[in-house]
């Protein structure tokens, strides 16, 4: 029987009308990785916030070791007892360097030369977890790509000065990482657990959970409905426990996609800035085009480049029609935190709702209600603040904003980060439907599965397009091969 580190007993939490956690019992043991799965809004993040001390529960007990620490339990106590957390919304200070951010978590790094020691600590950990990470201690966090920020955040959580890191919570840690870096992380988690650490892994990628976790807890509507050894589960049994049915999305439809290129007008023609030779990005009416490759190899910049040149025709580029973008980095590129859900959705469509120069509230309301039903935003009232939604539902609101706008060309910047399986299927269906109506999509994704929804895939490496694959010739191996060619 492994030593139990933390025991949660009857934990409950309510936010206004929403019961986020209901009578949750869960134990976390030394030398074990616990996988935590469930739909968006099932309460995973809330539960982890309780464990990390950032949210105090309404009811229930928190035991660490043999001590009942429920009273006055907060972040400081949690940290002192070795509980660390990597949250879904990154928590690094963007204006500080990597080393300075390490110091924020480790007050023990003080006195003359703390910056150097903090740098050594964090870079040492990065080398250990993510060999070849390319981050320097003096880099300002705000200048790093989201993947590198996530790597720093993870390395920081595992780094140790005066307090041990016994239990590390990883909330969607791989959602902004490409497959290679994600594999490095998961391998490290196994080593860490093997050396007696304890880890909680939250992920919507069930393969990761099945391969990495020892035990899997499934949450539905704020309750833990099932805890079992990972070996007792298969992908299908997990999905069934979560309460949705996974469809096989990889059926071939290659024949239909070729005709789109022949019959339909060219909407976008572009090359990454700085690339003069090689394949061009071509997008036709009604096409879904995927941007693949390792994270941070110029895909997001490509989308930004197209967006910035909308409505213009710079040399060597063609952008035919209005453009809209679905942000992947919700907090920085997407949401307006002081506005309601409704207003966050309608912001792109204000101009279509004008009458005598005034935005008509009735049109706003109608549009918000339409999209609430169409895309299934889970809220009692669209006038609630956008932050009252869970991460996945915020993302749905961003989809509604972009799809509701009158734009022929929709750019998507890895928008499915932290979105649950069921929601993804709904959104995929909407994308296909909109494409059939003549819209075109340019979709950067870090998930291999999503590329199989695309008619055409362009693989990026070192900020250039290195491969151009039509649907029928695309395989996972080809994409990976192109992504790594130079490195191999």
């Amino acid at each position, binding site marked *: 029987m492994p030593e139990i580190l933390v025991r949660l007993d009857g934990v409950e939490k309510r*936010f206004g009308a929403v019961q986020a956690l209901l009578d949750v019992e869960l134990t976390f043991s030394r030398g074990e990785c616990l996988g935590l799965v469930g739909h968006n809004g099932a309460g995973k993040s809330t539960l982890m916030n309780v464990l990390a001390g950032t949210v105090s529960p309404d009811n229930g007990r928190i035991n660490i070791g043999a001590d009942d620490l429920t009273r006055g339990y907060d972040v400081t106590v949690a940290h002192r007892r070795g509980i660390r957390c990597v949250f879904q919304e990154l928590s690094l200070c963007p204006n500080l360097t990597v080393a300075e951010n390490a110091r924020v978590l480790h007050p023990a790094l003080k006195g003359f030369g703390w910056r150097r020691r903090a740098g050594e600590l964090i870079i040492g950990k990065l080398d250990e977890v993510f060999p070849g990470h390319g981050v320097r201690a003096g880099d300002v966090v705000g200048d790093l790509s989201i993947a590198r920020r996530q790597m720093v955040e993870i390395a920081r959580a595992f780094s140790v000065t005066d307090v041990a890191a016994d239990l590390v919570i990883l909330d969607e840690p791989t959602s902004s990482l490409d497959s290679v870096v994600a594999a490095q992380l998961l391998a490290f988690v196994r080593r860490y657990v093997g050396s007696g650490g304890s880890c909680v892994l939250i992920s919507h990628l069930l393969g990761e959970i099945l391969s990495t976790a020892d035990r899997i807890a499934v949450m539905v509507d704020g309750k833990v409905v099932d805890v079992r050894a990972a070996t007792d589960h298969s992908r299908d049994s997990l999905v069934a426990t979560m309460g949705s049915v996974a469809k096989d999305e990889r059926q071939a439809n290659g024949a239909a996609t070729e005709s789109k290129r022949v019959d339909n007008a060219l909407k976008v023609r572009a090359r990454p800035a700085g690339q003069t030779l090689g394949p061009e990005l071509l997008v036709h009416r009604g096409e879904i085009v995927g941007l693949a490759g390792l994270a941070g190899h110029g895909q997001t910049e490509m989308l930004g480049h197209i967006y910035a040149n909308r409505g213009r025709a710079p040399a060597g580029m063609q952008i035919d029609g209005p453009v809209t973008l679905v942000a992947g980095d919700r907090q920085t590129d*997407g949401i307006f935190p002081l506005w309601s859900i409704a207003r966050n959705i309608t912001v792109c469509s204000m101009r279509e709702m004008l009458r005598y120069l005034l935005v008509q509230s009735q049109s706003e309301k109608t549009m918000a209600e339409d999209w609430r039903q169409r895309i299934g935003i889970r809220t009692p*009232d669209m006038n609630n603040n956008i932050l009252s939604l869970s991460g996945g539902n915020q993302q749905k609101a961003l989809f509604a904003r972009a799809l509701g706008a009158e734009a022929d060309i929709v750019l998507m910047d890895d928008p499915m980060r932290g979105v649950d399986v069921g929601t993804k299927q709904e959104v995929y269906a909407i994308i296909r439907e909109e494409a059939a109506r003549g819209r075109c999509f340019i979709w950067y994704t870090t998930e291999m599965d999503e590329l199989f929804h695309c008619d055409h895939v362009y693989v990026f490496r070192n900020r250039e397009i290195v491969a151009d694959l039509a649907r029928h010739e695309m395989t996972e191996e080809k994409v990976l091969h192109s992504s790594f060619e130079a490195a191999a």
Partner: protein
Amino acid sequence: MNAARPAARPAIVTRVLEQPWLWAYLGALLVWLATITFTQGQGAGEVISAALAFGTFSVIVGIGQMYVITLGPGNVDLSIPATMTFAGAVSMKIMGTQDAMIPLGFLIAIGCGASVGVFNYGLIRLLRIPPIIATLSSSFLFQSAAIAYGRGIKIKPPPILADFATARIAGLPILALVTILFAALMAVVLHRTVYGRSVVAVGQNPRAAHFSGISVDFIRFVTYVLSATLAGICGYFLSGFSGGASLNMGAEFLLASIAVVVIGGTSVAGGYANVSGLWGAALFMFLLVTMLNTFGLGAGVRLVMTGVIIIAVITVAGGKSANS
């Protein structure tokens, strides 16, 4: 509008209590009651009339400052006093006390203000100077320009302009009534037009605004020009009201323009603005000084009390919006 938050109280009570302008009006009312209690009811009406007359000018520049502050952290217009002086001096001198020149003088005041705004945003955008430094340095330039142009003499306004600026209907200043209507108009602009929504969006998240198809630079440009233009208009009417353009006429409006915005319930961090609160705050600020005068307190005590009371009001009112 976006104040809706889950709560157990009846909806209407919650909505009223959550209005950030409530505290400014409440403060103004309490201060007024304290004053007339002290004078045993004497001059109750006159005090309100005077508060409206003087508050008008704070509100005109406050509207511009509010739009600028709503653009987000770091955005503030410190050139308001210099712009008022500059526009006042130039327009008064060109009109040269001739009534026929009044419309031209008004356009000149607007032109002066707008030019300052364009110059300010030029510094901010092209030279990448932070707004606080850019507007401060441009205020030195325009204050000096006003001194050079006016040679330090008080330039008198045309008689009809002076009459209009001080005229009253049923004891209420006409200029204040016009400004109330203007404030209502600017509230509609803020909440219902594409421009107003864009200002609020940029203030909350400029990157998200950019990706929502809002031209962030253009919105900022228009807003700085708007603020300076309103300062020019304010300088024009203040010159008419106080018998001429003097070189220090804008001085008190640097703090006043910011104070009415903050006390009125607009978020200093940007992205949330409130026009109705401006009037409450302007009345409160004037009535506060009047009350302390009435109590016969010396200038030193008066300044200390003003500071303390403003801090108190912001603490009470700001405590509610801090957790939104």
